């Protein structure tokens, strides 16, 4: 089917496809290995082998961590709390700010938009050292610091603190993305609501938010995956095993001084990868659009 201008003949398409496939192989190999390895005693390259090195040795034993190590469920729960907390926070804060920035003129609007735009390009990892001090100060605030249920507070060594840091670092992207989506919503319905005496809050919540569902979905998926995947920030700011996340748990397995059992580590890795893959399968289009939009600073 000739669906592109200047695509050329069948042979040329075949050659281009071949080149692309060769370039993409290194990406695929890792995923193939992880899949094979989790069900094998060990692997020589991509070939599953048993203890004596003979081909075979398929097993389910690598997954025994699921029922033998109670820690895995603790860290999984923590990762889940982190991902969900981050998603709610990013969507709520960005859609509130995005709405006002898109619709209302107020002093400081340009300044804030300009600032977040600069921050969008600004490499936030360079601030990790300073954020360490900020989190330590937040820890000293009574109750809010380190005595909240579920997230443990917003200070150092708590899940809430990590959520807050990640939320702030994702804010520039989120605000611009939401502003872009609000910009494309027609103003008529909102004006009708406001004239009828609807407050700004109700207008935002009941009239506008339902209009930008695709934007919210894209931002939510992206935030969830970042929260679930994140390694560096929980690893840096959480020292307590009980508060640790699945990425940090996996890294600990990998950097153990004892010889690493790659097959078992692969199983934990696949365990962390599964939710991401499911999201990925069903939402690629959203995700490609967020990367295109996010890079250009919204819309």
């Amino acid at each position: 089917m000739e669906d592109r201008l200047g695509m050329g003949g069948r042979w040329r398409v075949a050659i281009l496809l071949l080149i692309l496939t060769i370039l993409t192989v290194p990406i695929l190999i890792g995923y193939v290995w992880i899949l094979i390895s989790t069900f094998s005693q060990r692997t020589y390259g991509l070939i599953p082998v048993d203890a004596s090195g003979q081909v075979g040795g398929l097993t389910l034993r690598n997954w025994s961590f699921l029922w033998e190590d109670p820690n895995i469920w603790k860290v999984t729960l923590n990762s889940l709390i982190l991902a969900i907390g981050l998603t709610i926070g990013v969507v709520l804060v960005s859609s509130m700010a995005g709405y006002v920035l898109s619709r209302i003129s107020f002093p400081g609007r340009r300044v804030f938009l300009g600032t977040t735009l600069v921050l969008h390009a600004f490499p936030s990892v360079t601030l990790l050292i300073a954020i360490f001090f900020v989190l330590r100060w937040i820890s000293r605030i009574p109750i809010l610091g380190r005595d909240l249920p579920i997230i443990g507070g917003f200070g150092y060594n708590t899940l809430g603190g990590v959520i807050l840091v990640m939320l702030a670092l994702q804010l520039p992207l989120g605000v611009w993305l939401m502003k872009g989506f609000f910009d494309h919503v027609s103003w008529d319905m909102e004006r009708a609501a406001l004239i009828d005496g609807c407050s700004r809050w109700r207008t935002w919540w009941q009239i506008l938010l339902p209009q930008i569902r695709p934007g919210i979905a894209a931002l939510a998926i992206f935030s969830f995956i970042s929260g679930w995947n994140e390694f560096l920030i929980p690893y840096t700011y959480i020292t307590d095993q009980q508060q640790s996340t699945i990425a940090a748990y996996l890294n600990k397995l990998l950097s153990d001084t004892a010889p690493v059992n790659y097959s078992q580590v692969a199983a934990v890795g696949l365990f962390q990868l599964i939710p991401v893959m499911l999201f990925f399968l069903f939402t690629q289009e959203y995700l490609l659009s967020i990367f295109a939009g996010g890079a250009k600073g919204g819309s």
Partner: protein
Amino acid sequence: MSESASTAQALEVGKARYPEEKASLRSLLSPLLFMAPAIVLVVVFFFIPVVIVLVISLTDMSTATGFNNWKWVQFDNYLRIATHPNTLPVLRNTLMYVALTLALFNVGMALVIALLTTHIPRRSGFLFRALWLLPRLTPSVVYIMMWKYVAADAPYGILNQHLLGPLGIPPTNWLPAQPWIFVILTNGFIGASFGMVIFTSAIESIPRDYMVAALVDGCSLWQRIRYLILPLLRWPLLFVTTYQTLSLLTSFEQILLLTEGQFGTEVWSLWAYQRALSNYWGNFQWGFGAALAAVLVLIGVVMALVYMRYFQFNQLVQEPKIEAL
């Protein structure tokens, strides 16, 4: 409608658009409440940290001094950086890492993938772009684990077993043997997707007329790329190059997971991180680490301002079309 009437109407609309002069406290309250969480977060996690980095870089604060016994040392930390024996090798590493990853993958490979996937049937193109997005979405710890296994010594490593073994090359653990190849590959396969997405949308937005004209004139694929597509990609190319330079300069997560800076792969940002927040000796030198980070913060601020200036980000900040009621 007569011209004067429409002008009068436009003026009236204009007046409604800019009600700032008569903005009452009440009308300001609701935007402020909407903005409050975002403003607080930006101040607490961007502005205050920038100040903290600069201030701490002027002290000798470390786990040895604690938070009470530190003192001001003026620019000693910066002088220490200037004379430190690691400074030159780390600087060289950083430049090599950024330049090679950028040229080979973040721009080079991104362009190749964008060009290839836009010249095959749409669905296949989409599939390949989705696959290239995969490394970016994979948890970094899992992703690096895959690469470690690719490089592992015989008989486990994929490279030794399936590619180099049959070619008769003696097996080894390739990560310590060729650390830079793997540092660049791991970062490159993640980094390429950013440019790929931007270049693809730029290529697909090239007007069809140009393409038709080129085809009518009998241009070959290569001629179309060279004389039509590449010139039109000038701005996206420049944008991706500068933007990714900054990202690479400050990203160290993959290197931390892959080598922890061993085998001579220490880069500037990782050096700052390890000095201040994570090292084997447990002596965290916040002052020195902050000075190292401050250098990057400075580069980041300058680069971000350059983007604002040259990529017309200002246009995006324009006033909303309708905002007053």
